[in-house]
């Protein structure tokens, strides 16, 4: 191994050679700079206040019932601070008079009050100091965010500690050639986004931001999880050659675009795409997806600012439905919480076991109804299906269906068109739902297995925690037995069954999943041609035997060894080209 090579987690396949851009967030550092254009500075300040207000109002509206009166009061006071005529007046006056950066003035002005509070002997005043600190940091953060945006250059390889959903929004607006992070695993937000945008990514290189300097040439090998810093001429040559071979392989795969995903003995699997950002749509169509199996609505809208209204949602959904017609568009309602986009201010000790998915929506019925109404209206072409996340009980299914019926009634009264037989489905991603799969299947039209969360909850492993992430195993016998049970039960309950989640995109798992009898699979657009190629070279009867065999194994090792063996026997081509 060369000494300029670092190993991390292979998060999104592909090879990129480019210039490193170190993206470091130093929001705590406020620099005393002079500004040339005072009008621009004032405008930036006003924008940051507006954005902060939006953020706070959203949190306030959603979480007020859950926060308790005292915390709600603090939020209200924070919103009032943003409207404080004296404070705002002083800040603007100083920006104009002193021609200094807004963040410096904001920091100086608000810190004055904090210092006054420090003089107080009362202990509860210290708490108040934190509240004021919060609002100050929020304004400064929003001032800086704008700055970052204009600073990121195109065509760079982003090197950063971690990528948050907010960063992604930022990055999606500029062309990024690759991602390298210090922390983050296979199923982290960073990995999902990199895959959906088809950008090579290597994550979890602990000291990437220390070892790589701004402007260094780096190679990202997203398939092997390797990065090379300041490569030698020899290394560059090797990787350029490899890029070329990959391109040729992609061209080969592209020939499959219009062909169906059907096994050698004629079993058809519907291959759909996951969609995280609207920009992916063209790519999804080009790669031959038969619609979408999972639209992550919490990703496609920038929920950091505010929840989109019915009209905006409708426009987005109808656009998807029309562009993908006659294919099916399965849309998952907002899955907020856990590691997903959420107002950072509602802190839960254990978010994965907390207020997320359908729980959040049922507690915020207006928000839920707005989305359902938008989806129903967009279903007029009869190609939209609605999917609910994080279902753990029959009650949640029934309550959700009730709300959907209620929305239908409203639309009928308003003479608005929609698909009255719209299909309703659920995600099975919690062990309780897996156990109850048959009964749940009887209530819904389709079931989609979300493997990321299911594996995490089943094995009690936090996929984002590097210390234990090696225990997150797709081929753990408990996982494959549970998958089999869900698929079998769904069929008994007469629901169509599909799988979305990273496991569906693992080509090693494809023969096993096909053998289990899935009707469809949903993967990132980039993976579709690969999975299709595998499906087209599988014999369904053989795959069923393989599955049966795997279900008898007692260890992860036995399962993965058997699958690797099967792979070597059947897909030599794939191994040589891709690996």
């Amino acid at each position, binding site marked *: 191994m060369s000494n300029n090579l670092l190993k991390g987690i292979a998060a999104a396949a592909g090879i990129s050679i480019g210039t490193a851009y170190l993206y470091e967030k130093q929001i705590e550092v406020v620099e005393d700079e002079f500004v040339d254009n005072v009008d621009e500075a004032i405008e930036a300040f006003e924008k940051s206040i507006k954005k902060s207000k939006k953020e706070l109002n959203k949190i306030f509206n959603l979480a007020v019932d859950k926060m308790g009166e005292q915390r709600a009061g603090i939020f209200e*006071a924070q919103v009032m*601070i943003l409207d404080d*005529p004296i404070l705002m007046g002083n800040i603007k006056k100083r920006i104009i008079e002193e021609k200094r950066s807004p963040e410096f003035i904001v920091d100086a002005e608000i810190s004055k009050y904090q210092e006054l509070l420090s003089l107080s002997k009362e202990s509860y005043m210290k708490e108040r100091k934190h509240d004021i600190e919060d609002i100050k940091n929020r304004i400064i953060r929003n001032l800086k965010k704008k700055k970052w945006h204009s600073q990121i250059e195109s065509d760079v390889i982003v090197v950063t500690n971690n990528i948050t959903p907010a960063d992604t929004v930022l990055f999606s607006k500029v062309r990024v050639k690759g991602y390298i992070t210090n922390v983050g695993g296979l199923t982290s937000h960073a990995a999902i986004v990199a895959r959906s945008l088809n950008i090579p990514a290597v994550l979890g290189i602990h000291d990437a931001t220390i070892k790589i300097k701004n402007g260094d040439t780096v190679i990202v090998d997203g398939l092997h999880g390797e990065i090379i810093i300041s490569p030698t001429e020899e290394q560059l040559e090797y990787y350029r050659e490899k890029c070329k071979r990959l391109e040729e392989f992609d061209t080969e795969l592209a020939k499959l675009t219009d062909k169906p995903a059907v096994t050698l003995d004629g079993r058809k699997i519907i291959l759909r795409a996951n969609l995280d950002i609207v920009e992916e749509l063209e790519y999804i169509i080009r790669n031959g997806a038969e619609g979408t199996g999972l639209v992550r609505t919490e990703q496609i809208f920038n929920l950091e600012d505010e929840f989109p209204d019915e009209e905006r949602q409708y426009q987005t959904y109808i656009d998807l439905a029309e562009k993908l017609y006659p294919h099916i568009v399965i849309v998952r309602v907002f899955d907020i919480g856990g590691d997903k986009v959420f107002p950072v201010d509602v802190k839960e000790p254990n978010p994965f076991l907390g207020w997320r998915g359908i729980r959040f929506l049922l507690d915020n019925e207006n928000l839920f109804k707005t989305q359902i109404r938008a989806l129903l209206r967009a279903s007029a072409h009869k190609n939209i299906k609605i999917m609910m996340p994080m279902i753990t009980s029959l009650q949640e299914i029934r309550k959700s269906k009730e709300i959907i019926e209620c929305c239908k009634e409203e639309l009928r009264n308003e003479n608005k068109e929609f698909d009255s037989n719209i299909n309703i489905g659920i995600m099975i991603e919690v062990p309780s739902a897996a156990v109850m799969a048959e009964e749940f299947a009887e209530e819904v039209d389709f079931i989609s297995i979300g493997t990321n969360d299911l594996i995490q909850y089943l094995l009690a492993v936090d996929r984002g925690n590097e210390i234990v992430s090696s225990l997150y195993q797709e081929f753990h016998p408990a996982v494959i037995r549970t998958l089999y049970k869900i698929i079998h039960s769904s069929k008994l309950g007469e629901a169509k069954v599909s799988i979305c989640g990273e496991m569906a995109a693992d080509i090693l798992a494809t023969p096993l999943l096909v053998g289990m009898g899935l009707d469809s699979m949903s993967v990132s657009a980039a993976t579709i041609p690969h999975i299709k190629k595998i499906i087209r070279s599988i014999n369904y009867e053989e795959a069923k035997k393989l599955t049966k065999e795997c279900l008898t194994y007692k260890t992860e090792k036995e399962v993965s060894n058997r699958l690797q063996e099967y792979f070597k026997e059947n897909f030599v081509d794939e191994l040589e080209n891709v690996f």
Partner: protein
Amino acid sequence: MIEKEVVIINNAGLHTRPAATIVKIAAKYKCEFFIHKDGMHINGKSIIGVMTLAAEKGSKLKLSFDGIDQEEACEAIVKYFEKGFDEL
């Protein structure tokens, strides 16, 4: 200009919620409104200012009002203090 002395009588003192209410009441009037305590002069229409006042139970504050509707403003604010911020 009119001035008036008030005492904080509720147990929790001038915490965030009453601070917000005071500012909201003050905003309804055109006159200037200041709160004076321990040599500090805080603009009563500034929430961040009023929040900064460390006024526990028993604290004495001086309020001053100056402007066209000073009488009405004074009456409304003083009444709110006398009610112990609706926390008695």
